[in-house]
């Protein structure tokens, strides 16, 4: 019996054999892991040795939808990739919007597991319940936009006009060149950006996955589902965040908000106040480079919010156009690099999309590099005359393409900020957690968010638990961002709920409008399984614990890794509203472990068995990694 919302089928692609297999998804697994991130984590734990080299043929990468994908539930036009990351060595899920996710569901599959390595570059064509591998030698080397166009052209000859409805996910030169933060791009401008999933595909020589189909998923209880949809739509329309701010300004609305709170990381987290913030804000974008008419087209499948941007720059030498830039991108190429020119930032953003690079890690690493230069750590010759200083517009653009092609200093940047800083003798300048570059919020002015960074299973990440919502935006309720009180429990709740959100797969921005009760209602109606809030939070907790267990098996994750760069723990914020603060991690970490039922950052047997993960506890024990 197939649970509602799913196709019930997984596509397994064996690249050694160049064969595809269709497998069933057991209901019992779906009830415990839902889909998306949760299902991906479960499958990876079952199928790979957590110690594998992420860029070796023994790693697997799974592209997934969830039960809600493609059903018409608002903000469900997303998909995710799960793999062992070459940047963090953790289990890692990377999410993307656009239109590819629902189309995979329509093509007849809930997920695609990719294993092994192909002899020569291939691409995968998935349509109407079938799949086949095709030669991609002519696509290898091509950028994301060209690859997409060429595949659609190729299919036009076979399926005629319907080819324009094909959705393509692919890697660009960055993924082919195994850049550790290479993205999987879909629908040209959308990115499963963080964690280097593009490099994993590159290592397997899988260039692209094109999907097309018309098989509509069916919720188990159509009546209850329609009601859940209407309720959610109503809440989305009522929330000013989802109904006004995001549609009008996109995520870029945050630039001024975060800067005025004094937590806009500037010049590699040296301070939290950037004088040029207004010039690179969402407000400025709306007045200058935004192409409003194209915003709806750029939106995720069926989304009522349409926060996506489409911009065009006509000022030389930064002329270009495309999707974005998002808040994080503006930060990464902006204040992180001391840059206050929105047009140059947009250009760097367009390049990242075309070359297949995570904008957060890319811009962040450039900022790391600029501080290394500032502190005299980079030998002059290495720059080849490039003006690599704070605010250099040409540097943010040049270093982007150099990284994608591992050209010159780009080869070092391609390894990520951590390895870059280590190579040049200043590891303390890498603002990373578990090897992943921190994003656009300085945690010294947001204590709970700082704890979230430190404990994130996938490395430096603001979305495992977006505590910016309560601590800064006041959603659902304002809490004191300077206090550590109550933050560990608050963080756990957000982390667990968001794990479920990532498994359904729906957009986290929905949580500005809907709450856990709504999520429960949606899952119950779609899957036809009666869930309570407690059930759903338990599923999230299970996913979170499984991820941590994978990491423990992978590299001995635990307390030593639940930390932050020295700068954020010991150097007080020098100016602004958060002046004088550091992250008071010591005040929160032990309480977090207590709330999680962990010891020194590792799940105990009791906790794992409580979550039905005895098999995971046994594995940890076998390797002497289970805490007493």
């Amino acid at each position, binding site marked *: 019996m197939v649970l509602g919302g799913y196709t019930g089928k997984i596509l397994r692609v064996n690249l050694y054999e160049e064969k595809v297999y269709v497998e069933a998804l057991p209901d019992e697994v779906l009830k415990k892991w839902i889909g998306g991130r949760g299902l991906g984590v479960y499958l990876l734990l079952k199928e790979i040795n957590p110690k594998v080299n992420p860029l070796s043929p023994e790693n697997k990468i799974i592209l997934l939808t969830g039960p809600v994908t493609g059903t018409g539930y608002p903000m469900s036009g997303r998909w995710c990739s799960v793999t062992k990351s070459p940047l963090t060595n953790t289990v890692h899920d990377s999410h993307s919007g656009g239109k590819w996710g629902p189309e995979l569901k329509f093509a007849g599959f809930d997920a695609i597991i990719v294993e092994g390595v192909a002899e020569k570059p291939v691409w995968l064509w998935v349509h109407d319940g079938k799949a086949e591998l095709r030669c991609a030698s002519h696509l290898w080397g091509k950028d994301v936009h060209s690859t997409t166009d060429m595949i659609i052209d190729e299919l036009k000859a076979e399926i005629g006009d319907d080819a324009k409805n094909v959705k393509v996910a692919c890697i660009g030169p960055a993924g082919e060149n195994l850049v550790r933060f290479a993205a999987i791009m879909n629908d040209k401008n959308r990115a499963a950006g963080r964690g280097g999933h593009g490099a994993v595909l590159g290592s397997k020589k899988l260039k692209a996955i094109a999907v097309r189909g018309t098989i509509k998923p069916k919720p188990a209880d159509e009546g209850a589902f329609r009601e859940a949809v209407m309720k959610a739509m109503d809440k989305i329309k009522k929330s000013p*965040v989802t109904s006004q701010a995001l549609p*009008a300004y996109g995520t870029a609305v945050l630039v*001024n908000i975060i800067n*005025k709170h*004094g937590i806009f990381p500037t010049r590699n987290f040296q301070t939290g106040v950037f004088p040029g913030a207004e010039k690179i804000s969402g407000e400025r974008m709306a007045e200058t480079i935004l192409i409003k008419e194209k915003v709806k087209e750029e939106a995720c499948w069926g989304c009522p919010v349409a926060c996506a941007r489409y911009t065009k720059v006509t000022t030389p030498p930064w002329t270009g156009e495309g999707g974005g830039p998002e*808040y994080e991108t503006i930060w990464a190429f902006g204040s992180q690099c001391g840059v206050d020119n929105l047009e140059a930032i947009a250009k760097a953003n367009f390049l990242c999309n075309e070359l297949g690079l995570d904008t957060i890690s890319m811009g962040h690493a450039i900022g790391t590099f600029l501080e290394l230069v500032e502190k005299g750590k980079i030998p002059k010759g290495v720059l080849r005359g490039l003006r690599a200083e704070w605010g250099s517009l040409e540097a943010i653009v040049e270093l982007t393409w150099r990284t994608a092609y591992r050209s010159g200093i780009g080869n070092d940047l391609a390894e990520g900020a951590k390895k870059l800083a280590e190579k040049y003798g200043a590891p303390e300048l890498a603002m990373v957690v578990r090897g992943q570059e921190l994003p656009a919020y300085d945690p010294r002015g947001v204590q709970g968010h700082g704890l979230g960074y430190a404990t994130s299973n996938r490395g430096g990440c603001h979305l495992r638990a977006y505590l910016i919502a309560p601590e800064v935006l006041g959603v659902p309720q*304002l809490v004191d961002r300077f206090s550590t009180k109550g933050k560990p429990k608050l963080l756990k709740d957000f982390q667990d709920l968001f794990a479920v959100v990532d498994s359904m797969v729906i957009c986290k921005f929905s949580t500005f409008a809907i709450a856990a009760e709504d999520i429960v209602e949606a899952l119950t109606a779609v899957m036809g399984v009666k869930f309570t809030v407690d059930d759903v939070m338990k599923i999230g907790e299970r996913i979170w614990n499984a991820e941590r267990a994978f990491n423990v098996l992978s590299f001995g994750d635990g307390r030593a890794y639940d930390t932050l760069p020295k700068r954020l723990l010991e150097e007080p914020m020098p100016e*602004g*509203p958060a002046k004088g603060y550091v992250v008071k991690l010591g005040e929160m970490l032990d309480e977090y472990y207590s709330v999680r039922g962990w010891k020194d950052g590792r799940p105990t047997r009791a906790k794992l068995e409580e979550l039905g993960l005895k098999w995971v506890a046994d594995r940890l024990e076998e390797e002497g990694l289970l805490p007493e």
Partner: protein
Amino acid sequence: MKVKVVLFSFLREKLGWKEKIVEVEGEKATLEAILDKLPDLKEAILSSDIDSFLILVDGVNVRLLKLLKTEVKDGTEIAIFPPGGGG
């Protein structure tokens, strides 16, 4: 004393200005007193759900201070945002 009031996002379109310097008598004043000097802004905030606005006094949310009774002094910056969000 003089304070700066700065507006963001669609408040700018709604009221037609981005920032204003407000001058009041004395060395201290409440946020409320400042808003009284800007009737269009006061109306925009109070006619909507005031809880949904982000009002910062020198970067600190007034809900952590004394709301409309929060004290401002010479050189204070009051930043007002309609609700925003993102990633």
